Structures are given as C-alpha cells and as structure tokens.
C-alpha cells in the first residue's frame, strides 16, 4: 500500500482528490485540512507521496514543500502540487523548491491518477 498525504483547505476539493486516489489500486490516503495539520501528520507514519494545494492560510503549500524538501528525514518523499491556475509564478516556485509535478485544478481524475503513478513510481 502506498500512503498519500492530501493537504487542501477546501474540504470539498480534498474529498474529491481523496476519492480519486482511492479509486486506484494500492493507494491509501491521510488528509490534512491545513498546513499546521500537514506538519503534524508528516512525522506520524511513513509517507510515499504528498499532494498539496498552494494557497492556504498561515502555512502555505510552498512552505510545506520547502519544509519537506529541506528535512533530512522527509526530503525523499515526492510531492505533487494540485492548484488552480491562479498564479503561474507560485507553481514555478513550488517546482523550483522540489515538487515533482503540478496538476491544475479542476483536474481530470485520469490525469491526476497518471501523474501520481508516475511520481510514486508505480
């Protein structure tokens, strides 16, 4: 089982991302409704992938990417940014910080799935 942490402050969007991931064989999910919760969840169990939104209050997605990619224990966890096309600049920064891929919202479930398979090496 590959374990995926899904970070999004919209409960609707999070539910749809989770539903999409759980349609795939061999994946299970953990959810975090904001950056704080994400930071709490990350050390609690081994993770195979983190899927995060960018625009969130207090601790944004870029900061989570930065945290994970600079942390000796977590830097190998691949990350995918799922975000609306709001700011190309923000997406570029996320990729520069070490995110492996970017999926634009609204996403096609198949596109998210294939990106996840590719990034998670399935």
């Amino acid at each position, binding site marked *: 089982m590959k374990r995926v942490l899904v970070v999004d*402050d*919209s*409960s*609707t*969007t999070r*539910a*749809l*991302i*989770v*539903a999409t991931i*759980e*349609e795939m064989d061999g994946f*299970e*999910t953990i959810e975090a*409704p*904001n*950056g*704080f*919760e994400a*930071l*709490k969840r990350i*050390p609690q169990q081994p993770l195979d992938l983190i899927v995060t*939104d*960018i*625009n969130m*209050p*207090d*601790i*944004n997605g*870029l*900061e*989570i*990417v*930065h*945290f*994970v990619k*600079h*942390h*000796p224990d*977590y830097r190998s966890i691949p990350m995918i940014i799922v*975000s*609306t096309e*709001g*700011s190309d*600049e*923000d997406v570029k*920064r996320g990729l*520069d*910080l070490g995110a492996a891929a970017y999926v634009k*919202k*609204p*996403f096609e479930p198949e596109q998210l799935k294939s990106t996840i398979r590719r990034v998670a090496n399935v």
Partner: protein
Amino acid sequence: MAARTKDETLREFLAESEELLDTLHRNLAAIEHAPDSIGPETLNALFRAAHTLKGMSGVMGLAAVSDLAHSLEDVMDRLRMGKLAMSRALLDLLADGVEGLERLIASASGGQAPTDTGTLVERIRRAMDAPQAAASAALPPGLDPEIVKVLTEYEHHRLQETLKAGRHLFEVRAHFRFEDFDKALSKLTAKLQSAGEVITTLPSSGVSAKDGIGFTLLVGSQRDRNAMAQLLADEAVELVLVGEQDPGPAKPAPAPEAESASTRSLSQTIRVDIAKLDGLLNMLGELVLSKSVIAQISKDLLQNGGLVGPAMELHKAAQALEHRVSGLQEGLIEVRMIPVAQLFDRSIRAIKKIARDLGKDIQVVTSGEETKLDKSMVEAIADPLLHMIRNALDHGIESKDERRAAGKPDVGTIHLSAAQKGHTVNITVADDGAGIDLANVYQTALTRQLAVPGREYSQKEILDFLFQPGFSTAETVTEISGRGVGLDVVARHLAKLNGMVEVTTQLGQGTTFVLTLPITLVIIKALIVGVGPHTYAIPISAVAESVMVEANQVVTVGQRPVIQLRDHSLALLRLSDLFGIPSTERKDSRLYIIVVGLAEKRLGLVVDTIEGQQEIVIKAVGSMLQGIPGVAGATELGNRKTILVLDVGSLIDEAVGQRTAAMPRAA
C-alpha cells in the same frame, strides 16, 4: 477510508460554500462599513474565499459557479495586490457577484431553477480593465533568501507594501515542542498580529532539536526593535530586525512552557451535520427522562422512609446524574448555537437592496449580534424577520421629502437588536418612520369586517388587526411587501416556533416589532399545570404571565368568559371545558389563569393547579391524538406519566380567532 458518495460530496460542497459565501458577505460588509480603512487581511480573505470557491466548484464540474467565482477572484486578486482601487461602484458589483454565486449554488443544490450569470461575469471582467502596475521596491540585504523563496506572489506584494510604507521588517524565530506547536504558534502569531502584519510563516527543517519544530515568521510593524522586544519579552523567541547590522543579544531559545490557552479557533472548529446533532439531542432527551425517573424513585423512597441508607445513596447518585446530564445538555445545545450576527448580516444586505429599490436612504444600526440562537431557529425566523424588515422599509420609513417636512434626518434608521432573556431571545426591528396610523388601521378593519362598528377598541386591540388574516389591503400591498402576504403569515409562522410578536408604535416617531423566541426548539422549558386529574405542559415561551383572580371577576361577554386584566379585556378558555374534564372546584373560589400569547393574540387558560416548570422534550403524538386541536405533542415527566403538550397557537385560533377581534372592550 471509503470513497465518498456523490450525495455526500454535494452536501460537503454546499456546507463549505455556505461558509465561504458568509466570509465574502462579511468582508464586503466590513468594507462597506469602513471604506477608508480597508485592511489587507480583509482583501486577502475575500480573495481566498473566491479562490477556494472557484477551485472546489471547478472540481465539482459546476462551470457556471467556477466562472463567476473566477471573475470575482481576479478582481479581488487585483484589489489585494494593489493593482485596482476599491470604489463604491466596484463594491456594489462585487456584492451583486456574491449574490449571483448564491443563486447559482442554490440552483446546484436543486432548490431553484438555474440562473444565467453570463452578463454578471462580463460586468465583473470589465471592471478589471486598465490595471495599474505596482512598482516594486528593492528587498533589504539582510533578508533570509530561504524566506524569499517560499513567498507566494501575494506575500511578496505584502512584503513590498511593508517596505514602501517604511515599516520595520522583523524575523521572529521560534522553536516549539511538536505535540502542541500549532497552539503555541497560533498564540505567537496573534501576539505579532496585534503589533503588525505576519507576512509569512516558514517551518524550518532539519537543524533543530529532534522533538520539536522551528518556525521563522516574517513580520512588518511600525514598532521599533525595542518595542517589539518588549512585546515578545515573555516568549522564547529570537528577534531579528532585518537590515540591522547588529541583531543585538539573541535570546536563547529553550523549550517553551506548555501553553494551555489557545487564542484562535481556526483549526479547532468542526462542521457537523445538524441532523446528527438532532439525533444526539434525541438520545439525550431519553437520558433526561431516565434521569427524571431515577430522581422520582429516589424522592419516593426518601418520602416513604424506605431503606434510608440506600435511599440516600440513590438520592446522591440521582443528583450527580442530574448535574452531569444538564451539563451535557447545555453543552450539546451550545454547539447548535450560532450568533444572530449571521442573520443580521443577511438582513442588512436585504435592507440595503430593498432600500436601493425603493430609493430610500437607510442606515442600519445593530446591537446584541453576539446573542446566540439555535441554528434551526435562525433559519426558521429568517423569513418572518425579513417580512417585518420589508414592512418597516416600505410602510414605516417615509420618503425623503416626507421626512424633511416632518423635520427628520433624510436618512431613515432601522435598528436590529437581539438580547437573551432566560430561555428566550428577543429580536427587535425598530424603525424611525411614520408609525402606524391607528385610525387608518381601524377603518381598514371596519372595511374588512374584522372590527364591529360602534365598539370601542384599545390601542393594543387595534394593533391586533394587523395580524388578522385578510387584513392586508390592496393599497398596502406592493412589490416589496409581497402580494397577499400579510403579518398574519408572520404571526402564524412564529406561533409554530412557540414564539410571540409584539408591536408598539408612535405616530410620527416609528414602530417597533419585538419577536420573542425560545432559544431552541428541541428541548423547551414548560409550565406544568393540572386540570382535574390531568396534567398538561405549556411551552414557557408562550406564557406571558400567570395570575390568580377571584372567580367573581369573570364576566360573560357574548357567550365567552372574560376578565379585565389591567387596561385589557382577556378572553378565557377553561381547559376542563376544552378537554371535557370535570374541574376540581377550588375551595377559595379563586382561579389560576395562565396568560398565553402568540403573536399579538392573548388568551387566558383557566387551570386548577400550577405544578412548576420543567424542561421537556416534545415527542410527536400517535395517530389517535393527531388532529386534536390544541395539542402539539406529548412528553414524559419524571413520574413516568405521559402528558400532553399544548399547542398555544392552535388553541388561540380555535378558541378566539376572529371572535376576539370583534370582541367589545369590557368597559
């Protein structure tokens, strides 16, 4: 975790949308209220809500919602980035946009036919023409490049604004224990926000102690280094003034003390389906019953001098149970409570819109917004409240010319207020308009054959006519007040909620409507009364007062017993007559009268005994009793006796109805 069903996802979407729409409305209202001091957090909150709504409606496949939210997001993004200036027209346009979103989302929930918001999107898009480019300032040399890397475009803009405004830029480094870093960080953030703006919060990784987590907060503030250091004197943080050569003696950062107090509710709120709470509350109702049964047994045992030891033990246990159950009950009712501010916000928007349509200048004054009411009650009274507001705007507040002629300010005032009184909440709608012309009302009542010619009516009795079915006249019906819907509908609606409405008016000065409502519909406080061998419960929110009168004070008018209570004649209904029960004669020839009132109607219920007040859970009655006038449901008391709960609204309708209106004043 199982994938959610489509229905569940739609419900989630609707609940989340409602919150986001509320955020949009609230922040637009804040700008409306203080257009000259729009804070960056207000504009950012607007942007974030529109952004989230766009994203989630996009993934839901609701293209129209997503498009409209997108256009609003773009405008709000420019506003928060300083590329577009706020104006009256733009604010109105944004308000229209949010209303459009509301309509679209309502139609997505299946409530309404889909509406076309294409032109609205066009109008919003046009508002963005010719954005000004924002000039950027050079970043100060001392700024940690790692921080700059994680700034979003918006945070970058806020950093620029801070520098342009000449504010100081601080890096605040903190280290927290992992278990409760969110609380500690929230507390620190709140403290910093009291002194300025937290531009970003970067969690730092790798270097710090194994069991904790470090953060660097970038803060813009007017305060200088000393003032800032003083503010943070109690915090185990490192403070750096960006660009300063010598950062001063850095404080060591020991593991912080455990903090029990949390300052923000942001990540501590939960959203619960109200139906689930209803289920819990029903279960609690059963528990309340068990509690009463145990209390009753313990009381019986004590009184009968049974096994004294065990009886005392049981009594103590019953008291402890009572204490815990009421704690649980209060807690559960508390989570259903929302401040009436939400209702007021909606009302204010409606008032602004109606006032625009009517071409009247209106200011709204509110008070007591923090008063809390059951969420389902708030929903239930939204329409009656709106109706009264429409009345006040349409019939109450005069035209500008009329106001000037009367020596009043051009701008009319509507005062919305709320206050809790024990187990009830009063909601007041007051206007400073023309007041109600009693002579006019009387004439109309005569024309409508509601009043009897030649009879004398008190002021209160004349105002009663306003709530009579069929009072609304063609002349008073306009588009605003709605054809054929009169205050009688409001009164009926409130009666269903065990509420009352009272009106007072002064010609030329204004009119005040006061709604009295129970704070919740699920568990209510009731007056327990006895009639012959039977016991009944009367919802306390419908009880105006109880009085004891001499039997010889009752006079018969027409075929109906009546007493004179202060300046008012009060029709009486003997419950023993209504339910065909032989009444126990009171030796002292005095009567207990429970004055009940719903809306403007009053009725005196004659009972034999008053047994006290008790909290009851209303249950639906079986088919045998359904349709019996005057019965709202049944409840169980602690003595395992099932008793009927009286439906005061239908009692009044049944007993007096049209006849009270035509009742002469007992002189």
